[in-house]
């Protein structure tokens, strides 16, 4: 058994080392660890920082355990000290209440900072692009309110431009996740959330719904395609001129549960996003419509809001955070 234990701890530390390796170096298939934009990078920094901080405590714990088990085994002739009644030590207690407090303290500060930072656009001086995202069963509808085009199951974005994704669902709650660009955010019926992402290099980035939505969930992926601004503009023009329009009826059909490929539309019913949010309960969210809309049909709903009279100032809907 003695040897068994030694090899076992070796095994564990080997695996820990392997995990570490995976977490730092690693091939392109580790998409979370190979971010292609500022948001994902910032999150990766935090992942790295937290890994290092917890390892500072965990590694000594593992080492100590290995040492103790080897040294204080109950075997004949073991000369290590045996103190059956030694059970208090103020100094030690202070150490192991203190060190974790310290580490958690440091981690908390960085967590707070980044949490707040991610609610702001990654780049302040570039005019952001807005894309509205509606998760459906089991597909993703992307609406470009300024370009007036729409796509299904893929979205094109220009590189170097902060993209403001406005998220909602017209189906059970899902989660919008493009690991290489940054972390996810729920898409919820009746809610319009905001998620800032940005791609720095051209590429085709894997995206997937991350919150279970039923039978078709496994096939609920999409792509975010980043290209230069000029390529992006060309793509918009092309969609506008060649693709069919998304009509109300078309949307109703899209909404039916199904798994489909990609599609693009040269236009979509104005206010589609806001109406969707509104119908599914958005009218109960103070501040939400004021923030998200301002563009489309908010005005027509303003009178109906049940939230009249409550204090809405400062209640800004911010996706992240």
């Amino acid at each position: 058994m003695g040897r068994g234990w030694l090899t076992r701890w070796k095994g564990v530390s080997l695996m820990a080392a392997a995990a570490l390796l995976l977490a730092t170096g690693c091939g392109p298939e580790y998409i979370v660890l190979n971010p292609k934009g500022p948001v994902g990078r910032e999150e990766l920094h935090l992942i790295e920082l937290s890994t290092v901080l917890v390892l500072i405590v965990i590694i000594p714990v593992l080492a100590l355990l290995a040492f103790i088990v080897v040294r204080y085994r109950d075997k004949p002739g073991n000369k290590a000290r045996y103190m059956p009644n030694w059970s208090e030590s103020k100094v030690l207690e202070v150490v192991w209440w203190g060190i974790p407090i310290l580490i958690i303290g440091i981690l908390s500060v960085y967590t707070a900072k980044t949490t707040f930072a991610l609610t702001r656009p990654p780049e302040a001086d570039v005019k952001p692009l807005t894309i509205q995202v509606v998760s459906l069963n089991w597909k993703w509808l992307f609406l470009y309110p300024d370009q007036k085009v729409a796509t299904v199951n893929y979205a094109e974005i220009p590189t170097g431009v902060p993209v403001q994704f406005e998220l909602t669902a017209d189906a059970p709650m899902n989660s919008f996740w493009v690991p290489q660009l940054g972390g996810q955010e729920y898409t919820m019926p009746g809610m319009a959330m905001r998620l800032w992402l940005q791609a720095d290099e051209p590429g085709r980035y894997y995206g997937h719904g991350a919150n279970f939505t039923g039978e078709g969930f496994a096939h609920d992926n999409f792509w975010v395609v980043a290209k230069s601004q000029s390529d992006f503009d060309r793509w918009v023009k092309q969609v506008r001129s060649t693709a069919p329009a998304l009509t109300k009826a078309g949307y109703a059909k899209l909404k039916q549960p199904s798994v489909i490929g990609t599609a693009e539309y040269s236009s979509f019913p104005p206010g589609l996003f806001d109406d969707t949010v509104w119908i599914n309960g958005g009218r109960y969210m103070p501040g939400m419509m004021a923030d998200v809309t301002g563009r489309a049909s908010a005005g027509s709903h303003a009178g109906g809001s049940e939230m009249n009279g409550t204090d809405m100032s400062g209640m800004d809907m911010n996706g992240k955070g």
Partner: protein
Amino acid sequence: MPAGFQHFADTYLMWNEGPLIWMSDALIVLTSLGIVGALTYFKRWKWLWREWLTTVDHKKIGIMYLIAALLMLFRGGVDAELMRTQLALPGVHFLDAEHYDQIFTTHGTIMILFMAMPFIFALFNIVVPLQIGARDVAFPYLNAISFWLFFFGAMLFNISFVFGGSPDAGWTSYPPLTELGFDKGPGENFYLLGLQISGIGSIATGINFLATILKMRAPGMTLMRMPLFTWSVLAACVVIIFAFPALTIALALLMLDRIVGTHFFTMLHGGNPMMFINLFWIWGHPEVYIVILPAFGVFSEVVATFARKRIFGYSSMVAALMAISIISYFVWAHHFFTMGAGADVNTFFAVATMAVGIPTGVKVFNWLFTLFRGRIRMQLPMLWTLAFVPCFAIGGATGVMLAVAPADYQYHNSYFLIAHFHQVLIGGVVFGMLAGMYYWWPKMFGFKLDERLGRWAFWFFNIGFYVCFMPQYALGFMGMQRRMYTYPADTGWGTLNFVSTIGAYLMGIGFLFIVLQVLYSIKYGERDLTGDPWDGRTLEWSLPSPVPHYNFAVIPTVTDRDMWWVLKQEGRTEELRPKPEEIQPIHMPKNSGRPFLMGFAFFVAGLGFVFNWHVLAALGLLGVVACMIARSFEYDDEYQIPVEEIEYTEAALGRL
């Protein structure tokens, strides 16, 4: 076939669902026939009723919980093996989406509510009264009710697989996916009612053990002399009584939505699905601490016993337990950091969550320093405890990483999360419960479990664990989401999934060794004649194994922490033997069939609600009410054990 039967078979027996269901159907029918046959053949029906179904003895109730937990571990484990088989390679069609969804849902629900919960309750029941020097729990009758509510709740949940269809929206069961609009089937109703019924039982258990620990301690056993396992039960019960009501409400409201047509969580008419998520985790997070705290208690007992050393930093340990149980109440939103409730909300809950790591760390260090300068005996309970430390430390550390809200945006709902919680649930709860089972097994049954087979189980399960779950962290970084029934080859997830599946099989083999070990030891296991096979420290080891049903012939007067150890050191063990002149008649609660009937009535009512059969539901509820009223008028619920009988029993055990 008559049309009526055809319809019945299609709707409820799900005949067109394929071989998986047929096999389970056949298995269940065969097992039931086998049990009925065996009971009849050996003329054990009466015995079953008298000794088990009507018992109010905490030790027997504990054993029934234990059996149920092991069975459910098997059922949940088979689910896990099925899932892992399906995921071993990309694009497999061993299970289709529908069945896979059902299986991960039942796997998660069963493992947490019908495996982990009864396992901890098993140990509560078996150990707590013995450790504090009591004859039974505060409310033995209620204790039996708790068990039968758990049992029939679990039954209701489990029959869904072959009768009407399983739930398939995850153990978290988020609406609106679980609202009628998206989920017609009775599966979700099974989930809601099965959990509701057993949840009521859990609340009662929490109250019962809290009252027991606060009020039934032997003279001299002050709070700060209580064994740490009892302390951990106290802490867990505090969490139970304050957290479970949230589950009750979450389930009740969703059920109202489904059955009565209200709009709490629907998409239309002003419902707010997020509120369910909120309520669910108000319970759900504390729930994971409910199951881990008793495991912490087990480790504290085992570490001290097998290192032959006083537990290090006892008061710190107590403070840490209480701190964990209170803080655990203020962290629930970390399960939905990505809901976008606001940077302020996320920051608050992130910091609170990380803070739990501090008292937990204190416990880890105190265990280590209990071992330090001790003499460590590598017997099975100790092995599992030693395996727990690294496993839980790593799992806890990844928990802290998840608590970093912005990082969680990348981990959430990925296999990184799956790896985290299996590491704490298996490395913490399952290892802990197994350690406890091995430790107290002789006390329950009077024999030890075979050491050699146990080691095989241990190594298979442990190595299997790391092989299964370490790759899942990596899969998380590769962007693999949870709850996908299959994935395409070009994702590159195939290799690691394959490795993970191998690990799961190894764990399965480990479990088979445990089964083998139990069967083997029943026949050949080393008998425990002293009542103190591990050279223990606390009161339960002063009693013979198995313990007579009145526990202590004479209630001891406690003078120390680890009193039994101290007495042994000073050669004063005689003090805990009953002296003839001190023996007096003992009052014990009478057996009652009513808790069983009441559980059954709940089951009937539940079934009625599942299928909207209102008459059946009403009949069931009527049965429940009848049981309660009958109890209200019951005055004569105790009997007396005469002195002669006690003397006779004790003499036969060689203690007089």
